[in-house]
């Protein structure tokens, strides 16, 4: 069953169309990897799904309901969780306050926060030791863990992960991929945009390649040996 379905989706900025008719399906409990060269429209596509960029055409269906025009917070409440490119944290809030916002809790010392803190600290112990520190003072890896914690604190069935590994040390990248593995094992769907192509394909159920706002390849990971993927990349770059 399709959890998320895009039908001829179009979007862009002002008069420049960045996404030109994209059809894409994320089935329940599966990991879909989205690849493509710089400027292919991967980030825009994720933002359009999450509602930060308005769709100019086509349809977004989630759990068999259209939400093409819903605002970003409505989509988030429905269960679409975008972890944005860069660091998706509130820099001037403490780690605990970040978790309060993530957990949609009523105050600092409420049961949902305690649960959120336990959840986050269970996965990323380092966060549990930094609860009262301003999030902006965490290291890059810790910030990314805090951003990713939102996926765990909420029970969103669909996680959109945009370049989570960018600019992080290899050991932290391992932790991030482990966390994605946990999400998979919980039966949640992940739409993953990644620069580590081979690692991403290794965890994927399906692979899409996007170029210049269009899907140029759809298939199973087995169908795209690493070389084929790279061949298409090079075509796109040329």
């Amino acid at each position, binding site marked *: 069953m399709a959890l998320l379905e895009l039908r001829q989706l179009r979007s862009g900025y002002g008069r420049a169309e960045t996404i030109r008719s994209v059809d894409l399906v994320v089935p329940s409990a599966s990991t879909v990897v989205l690849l493509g060269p710089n400027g292919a429209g991967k980030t825009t596509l994720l933002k359009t799904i999450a509602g*930060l*960029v308005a769709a100019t055409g086509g349809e977004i269906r989630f759990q068999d309901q259209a939400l093409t025009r819903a605002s970003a917070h409505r989509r988030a409440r429905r269960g679409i969780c975008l972890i*944005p490119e860069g660091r998706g944290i509130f820099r*001037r809030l403490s780690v605990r306050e970040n978790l309060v*916002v*993530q957990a949609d809790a009523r105050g600092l010392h409420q049961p949902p926060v305690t649960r959120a803190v336990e959840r986050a600290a269970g996965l990323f112990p380092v966060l549990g030791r930094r609860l009262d520190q301003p999030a902006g003072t965490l290291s890059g890896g810790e910030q990314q863990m805090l951003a990713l914690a939102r996926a765990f604190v909420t029970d969103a069935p669909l996680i959109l992960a945009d370049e989570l590994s960018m600019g992080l040390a290899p050991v932290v990248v391992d932790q991030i991929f482990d966390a994605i593995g946990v999400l998979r094992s919980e039966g949640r769907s992940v739409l993953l945009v990644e620069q580590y192509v081979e690692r991403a394909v290794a965890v994927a159920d399906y692979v899409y390649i996007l170029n210049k706002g269009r899907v140029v390849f759809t298939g199973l990971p087995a169908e795209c040996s690493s070389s084929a993927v790279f061949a298409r990349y090079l075509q796109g770059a040329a």
Partner: protein
Amino acid sequence: MRDYLPYIVVGLGAGSVYAIAAMGLVVTYKTSGVFNFAHGAVGMAATFAFYSLRVDAGWPTWLAAAVAVLAVAPAMGVAIDRLLLRRLVGAPSSSYVVVSLGLLVALQGLFLVIYGPATRRVEPFLPQSTFRLPGVNVGWDQALLVVIAAASGLGLALFFRTRFGILTRAVVDDRDLSELSRVNAGGVTSASWVIGCSFAALSGVLLSPLLGVDAVILTLLVIQAFGAAAVGRLVSLPLTYAGALAIGVAASLSTKFVVDHPSLQGLPSSLPFIVLFAVLVFSRRGKFAEVSRTDLRVGGSVGLAVSRFPTRLLVGLAVLGVVLPGRLDSGRLLTATAVVAFALIFSSLGLLVGMSRQVSLCHVVFVALGATTLARLLDGGVPYLLALLLAGLILVPVGAVVAIPAIRLSGLFLALATFGFGVLAQNLVYQTKAGFGGKAILTISRPDLFGVSLRGDEAYYFFVLLVVLAGLVAIEVVRVTRLGRILRALADSPVAMQSLGINPVVPRVLVFCFTAFLGAVAGGLLGTLTLSVNAQTFDFFQSLLWVTVLVTAGPSSLAGAVTAAVALVWVPTVFTSRTVVQWQPVAFGVAAIFLAQSRNGLVGLVRRPDFKRLAERTSWRLGSVRRAERLEEAAG
């Protein structure tokens, strides 16, 4: 000490009311990132609602107050947020300043039209009896004011410790991310406007028995809260509260002091603005960073395009100026002379508001003091031309003083500092020997120059035309040469300019000095036209009105300045009906709200009619398009 106690009691009561207004201002600012210059006007409007319900409709006081504070003001807050501000997302902070200024001017104008200028008395509704504390009698009303303010402050503080407080800070920190985290960011912002406007209304209602209900006075009084808000750096509620009480007490004590020093009679009412200006100018650099990161540029940024020397327009204006007087009767000729002088005022203001994108709210100070200085120099026997030149030069250091905040502060805070400076100058300097010297009116007589008498209106018209054309040419030269280029680039990106090795201090000081000089000369010309300088015509409010007029007409070009002069001075003499004259400020205020983001006001629309874009910019339903543009900017 005993002598001072009653003043302290009075000061605490007044300070408490300012505290309520100031805390409302701070809540809105720190949550939405928008400083509401119209805060006082909103309070004024709600107070009129209170008055009408209580007196005209005969409602019980408590019900009228509750409706004004809890229904009318919140509705205004939501309307301001949803209709006026949401479409500005991503605009530079000067656009926000202009929109809230436009709202101030429009609201004040509107209520003057509806209720007329007369102050309405309001029966006191707080108990008037007193009780005895050691050494002093305290009115129950004063005690109640203190209690109400303290309770409101405490309530706010508790409110911000709840989830709403955290969500608020999250929205301020990163609006998009908070949306992704399921927070209704728009709702949080609207809530902050509801709170802010309610507090403004509460302070207005509480002030009404003391001061009566008056569109001008109430707007200004709530504005006194700006000083207290500045003490709290516009973000700290406890500091704002303390600052308001301190200002209230200091102002009250100074009334005692002023009894012995009549020349300082403007001091008590100026104290909030002294605090405002001083805090902004003297606090450490970087302490006043704007809360929101709204300074992201949107595609096709504001008013940068015009940079060619307008030879044809200048020649055309000169020809028109020479031909016109033959076709005018004597009354119209005087108006035409004023229009010409105002073209210089607006053109010089445009160097700041349009070209450098620095909203300066004290331009009237240069004009007024230019006129008074000219009058005094002429009294002292200085020949006219030399006196006019000297009047301009004497105002140059004043321009340099105003440039101090311009160097240190940007956008909003510069506007606030110049605003404070404008009020200060009116309250403190106008009455000294440097200004009007205690007189309401100074006289200026027209001179003979090189054997030609300028006593005739036509001769004087041509003299003004000559001087103004010279000034306009100088302004246009500045625009197209290095200074203008640097200032335009600084408006776009100060960081980029500094990385090119350009020191931003010198050009900013120069442009303020230059505008001060030109404003003073224009003021002198206006004074000579009417043969007198009247302190009332140079009220600080004019500075605000001028900015809205200029933004409406087109702040970035000569054509805009001329249009502004015609719209402000000529229109009311052509359409003499009372309705037109009364509605003029309302029209300018509303127009400024809608044109705050256009390239170059009405003139820009005529030159390059891009109605699709204007529709996008003025429509609130297309917020998503604007948001998308902003994201594109941020991304790339």
